[in-house]
């Protein structure tokens, strides 16, 4: 490392040129494929990924299951358009509003275009809007009718209210399409893929802009949230990163008063960010919510070591008045601690590679890479830059006079000097305070609530949050979770066995032929039916034909038994589960197969309320469902079950997308199943985005804990190696341990949710906070050796070394604050807590470490001298 600095001092121009060429190459490497993808197909373009699903890797079982079932039950990602009218006493159920809603619904159907892989846009057939859903109702004289709920906009107030009355009478639409209070409506617009939601929403907004009237339109839904997130992410990167740069520049100017000189750390920061982000994009990684924070992280870290060099250079230059000699002095003193602080920081971030969450892995690995790059550019470019400056321009640079630790002149120096004396005199008090703090933190940690909600990543005033609040107040909930119930045992084998038994009673030649063929079908009922049809076509006579017919009927009958969710007792079981879900208080509403059966049954029996029930026999259920399938949307049935009725899905609407609520629901449902065995042993499995969020959170919590413990051990080992002493190694871990305990204690005490950004903090603070301890202890040990006793040494330690640490705390701690201006909550959280961690770690280092050294002085210095 020192060799590198030596080389840089010898050939400064080469190093500067290399850095410039490297930066330009990386910029081109990102820009070329992004703007001219056709010309450079071998390079990966910049691509943004805002999908929270990607918190889990694509081959994660829960995601595979989720995508599989989405396809199986034809479920799509949806844009939700809520329409609210607060001035009309009838809410939106007036002719004017409904005309607009009708127009919007009809307009939405036409939003589609030819994409690269076939048509993209709105899935017409699956839109839930008043003109696109069926009403089943009485049509006089014992006639039942299927009709579009609102085939044309109503002309009168009364007809408008009628739309509400009809919809609220249908369980599927009540509190979903029309609000419980009868004032609002929500349209659900399914789209081919999440990543086109912005385009679709833009077209909808254009249409909405043409409407007159006093309706408020809220466009929301998870796909919208994600797309918006992407836009805000760019704002974050475009605003926060330059702002951080500016702030760091300003702070350094305050400390060093030489624009020319402080340009050096800025170059280091710039080149490190370009290198890291370039490497990220060119290796084909997407820019995710996590990786978008990389520049803001790299910048302060990159500046950190450069500040040490400048700080030292600033103090030492007046002594030599020679660039080369000063640099040599500075680099000899700092190259080792700089290497170690860089290694520990890299280890802290690198530990994130062991979390099970891909975006966090990428984040950790590339920050570690960036830290390494920053170290390299610091030890080469800063010396090179200084060498390229003329000696004249350094005139008057540095501390005007050599500051004496015993007679401090600046306020900062005075405060530090007092601190040093205090820790020596009141070491026991400091330790007592520390122990109290740890106790309180422990209590706070026990109060920590693990929770997250991607919608809450937006600040409370964001339109998406407002829409979320408004719609969840009025409707049964905009957060969807799906629960699939399926028989535990292998149904194909059971069917084949039952069939064999049933046919063995038949002694016709056809039955014997069929029995022989049976193994060929492998339990596939359609294959059996096709075989029988083929036999019937070539049947010699009526007798043979009907013998085959009987067999077909038998196959059908036996198969029917395995159509579990046509069984009344199974439907009653699902009904019971639905009632239970409502009682948990977590669920606004659930839609399931029993609702369809009961509604159609009611309308078949004159629309009377007492007919709103599941009929007694399987045939009656089947015939009720057959009736339902004469509607405009017969395929809606397959959102709730499969054509073989062997499985069923409950649509569950939650008013809250908080993971803690979903987790509670998962637990409650587990309890239900363990206490209420179904008539046929069932497996239950969740899917839907609300559930996926819970899964990745669980993985994150345990994964982060492991990553943290792992990196804690790694850093400890590095410290023991650095100080060549177990005791000193352990000592160096104390400030950061107290810091982390304190920060998480506060999070628990103030009731801030332990979410994704908070989880990431532990590893980050580990890598950053240990830096101060390294610098402090290294200087302390050296000073104690020099002065002979700790009492004498403490004064000089609280001189230049303490000042360097304090300058660093201020520059780096402040460097993260631009994240507070980001529009998205996770960035704010990270910005706030990282600044808090650095500040507290600085304080902890300057108070706790000297107090501990004071108390254990004999032990520490004896043990240190022993190996020597």
């Amino acid at each position: 490392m020192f060799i590198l600095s030596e080389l840089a001092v010898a050939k400064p121009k080469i190093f500067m040129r290399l850095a410039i060429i490297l930066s330009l190459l990386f910029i081109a490497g990102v820009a070329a494929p992004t703007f001219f993808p056709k010309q450079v197909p071998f390079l990966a373009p910049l691509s943004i990924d805002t999908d929270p699903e990607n918190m889990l890797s694509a081959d994660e079982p829960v995601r595979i299951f989720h995508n599989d079932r989405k396809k199986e039950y034809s479920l799509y990602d949806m844009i939700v358009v809520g329409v609210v009218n607060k001035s009309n006493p009838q809410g939106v159920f007036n002719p004017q509003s409904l005309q607009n809603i009708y127009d919007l619904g009809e307009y939405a159907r036409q939003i589609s275009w030819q994409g690269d892989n076939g048509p993209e846009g709105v899935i017409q057939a699956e839109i839930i809007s008043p003109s696109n859903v069926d009403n089943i109702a009485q049509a006089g004289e014992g006639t039942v009718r299927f009709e579009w709920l609102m085939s044309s906009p109503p002309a009168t107030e009364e007809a408008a209210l009628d739309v509400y009355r009809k919809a609220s009478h249908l369980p599927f639409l009540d509190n979903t399409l029309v609000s419980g209070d009868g004032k609002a409506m929500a349209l659900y617009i399914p789209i081919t893929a999440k990543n086109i939601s912005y385009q679709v929403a833009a077209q909808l907004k254009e249409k909405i802009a043409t409407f007159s009237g006093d309706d408020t339109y809220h466009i929301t839904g998870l796909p919208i949230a994600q797309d918006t997130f992407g836009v805000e992410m760019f704002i974050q990167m475009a605003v926060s990163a330059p702002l951080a740069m500016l702030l760091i520049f300003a702070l350094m100017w305050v400390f060093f008063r030489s624009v020319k000189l402080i340009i050096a750390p800025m170059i280091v920061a710039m080149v490190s960010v370009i290198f890291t982000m370039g490497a990220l994009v060119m290796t084909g990684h997407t820019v995710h919510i996590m990786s978008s924070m990389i520049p803001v992280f790299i910048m302060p870290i990159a500046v950190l070591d450069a500040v040490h060099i400048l700080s030292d250079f600033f103090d030492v230059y007046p002594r030599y008045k020679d660039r080369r000699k000063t640099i040599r002095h500075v680099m000899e003193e700092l190259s080792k601690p700089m290497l170690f602080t860089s290694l520990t920081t890299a280890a802290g971030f690198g530990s994130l590679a062991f979390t099970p969450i891909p975006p966090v892995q990428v984040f950790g690995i590339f920050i570690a890479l960036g830290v390494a790059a920053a170290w390299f550019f610091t030890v080469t470019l800063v010396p090179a830059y200084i060498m390229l400056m003329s000696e004249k321009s350094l005139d008057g640079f540095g501390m005007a006079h050599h500051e004496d630790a015993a007679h401090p002149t600046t306020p900062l120096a005075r405060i530090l000097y007092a601190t040093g004396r205090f820790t020596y005199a009141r070491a026991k008090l400091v330790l007592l305070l520390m122990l109290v703090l740890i106790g309180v933190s422990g209590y706070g940690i026990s109060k920590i609530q693990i929770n997250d909600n991607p919608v809450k990543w937006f600040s409370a005033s964001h339109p998406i949050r407002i829409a979320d609040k408004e719609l969840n107040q009025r409707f049964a909930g905009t957060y969807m979770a799906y629960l699939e119930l399926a028989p535990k045992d292998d149904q194909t084998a059971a069917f084949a066995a039952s069939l064999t038994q049933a046919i063995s009673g038949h002694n016709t030649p056809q039955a014997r032929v069929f029995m022989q063929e049976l193994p060929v079908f492998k339990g596939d009922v359609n294959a059996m039916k096709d075989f029988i049809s083929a036999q019937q076509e070539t049947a010699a006579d009526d007798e043979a034909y009907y013998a085959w017919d009987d067999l077909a009927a038998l196959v059908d009958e036996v198969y029917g038994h395995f159509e579990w969710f046509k069984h009344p007792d199974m439907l009653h079981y699902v009904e019971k589960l639905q009632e239970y879900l409502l009682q948990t208080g977590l669920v606004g509403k659930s839609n399931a197969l029993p609702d369809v059966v009961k509604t159609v049954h009611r309308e078949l029996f004159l629309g009377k309320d007492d007919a709103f029930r599941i009929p007694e026999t399987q045939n009656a259920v089947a015939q009720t469902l057959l009736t339902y399938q004469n509607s405009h949307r017969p395929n809606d049935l397959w959102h709730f079950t499969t054509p073989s009725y062997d499985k069923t899905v409950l649509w569950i609407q939650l008013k809250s997308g908080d993971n803690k609520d979903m987790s509670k629901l998962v637990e409650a449902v587990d309890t239900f199943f363990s206490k209420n065995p179904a008539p046929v042993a069932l497996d239950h499995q969740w899917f839907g985005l609300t559930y996926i969020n819970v899964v990745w959170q669980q993985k994150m919590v345990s994964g982060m804990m492991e990553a943290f413990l792992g990196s804690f051990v790694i850093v400890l080992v590095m410290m023991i190696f650095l100080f060549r002493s177990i005791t000193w190694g352990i000592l160096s871990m104390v400030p950061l341990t107290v810091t982390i305990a304190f920060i998480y204690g506060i999070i628990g005490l103030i009731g801030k949710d332990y979410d994704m950004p908070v989880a990431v903090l532990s590893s980050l603070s580990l890598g950053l906070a240990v830096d101060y301890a390294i610098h402090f202890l290294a200087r302390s040990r050296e000073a104690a050796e020099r002065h002979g006793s700790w009492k004498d040494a403490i004064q000089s330690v609280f001189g230049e070394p303490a000042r360097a640490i304090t300058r660093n705390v201020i520059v780096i701690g402040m460097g993260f604050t631009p994240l507070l201006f980001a529009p998205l909550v996770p960035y704010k959280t990270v910005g706030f807590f990282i600044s808090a961690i650095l500040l507290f770690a600085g304080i902890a280092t300057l108070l706790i470490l000297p107090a501990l050294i004071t108390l254990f002085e004999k032990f520490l210095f004896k043990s240190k001298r022993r190996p020597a």
Partner: protein
Amino acid sequence: MKKIFTALLFSSALFLSAPAAHALSVNEIVAKANHAAYYQGEDGRARVKMDITDSQGRKRTRDFVILRKDIGDDDKEQKFYVYFNRPADVSKTVFMVWKHVNGDDDRWLYLPALDLVKRIAATDERTSFVGSDFFYEDVSGRNPSEDTHELLEETDNYYILKSTPKKPDQVEFSYFKSYIHKETFIPVKIEFFDKNGEKYREGSAEAVDTIQGHPTVTKGRMKDLRSGSETVLSYSSVQYDAGLPEDIFTERYLRQAPTEYIKR
């Protein structure tokens, strides 16, 4: 033989009546196609196997017998009786339709397991027929007078017609195109287009057999191009002029199926 003879007879008659233009008028083509598709013979019966296959390849099968009787010979009033054999749990379910050219059809549904005869309002005939991709109207026939027809093209084998609804707000299509076989007048293909002018639904005759002299579609397919679902109807045991008495097309016979006519 009879069919060819009829065809010859028709063409010569036309030749005589309109010597200058050897072509048929659009409305004549439509009337003939309507006849060929729905009104052949005095009555008819067939056993039908319905295979509904969705975009995921999941197949559902229904088996039913369809009986049809024309009332009068002006290709207008008709009665249908659809008796379900399978799936086993809907066996004996019956749909009955009295098709009216002026005014809404009458439709009945008999659900044996609920012991219920129910009238189904038929104001909108473009709803699914028992969950298939065929609409009611595809099964019983859309009244030609509901659309205005134009001849788009005449090829060697087909008349290609474009039919536009007179009341566009009552249907989901903006127009449909039909390919009518010049010799048999069987519509072999029919394509529906939406308001964006995009084709979203397509019916086709996959097999045509001459039965008792009537060219008859014995296999018809309807595809929903948006959902990727399709339904195939396979007709067997087709019989024309079976002498079906009109009284079996009454409510009385819903609960008590006319056994001899619904057998093979």
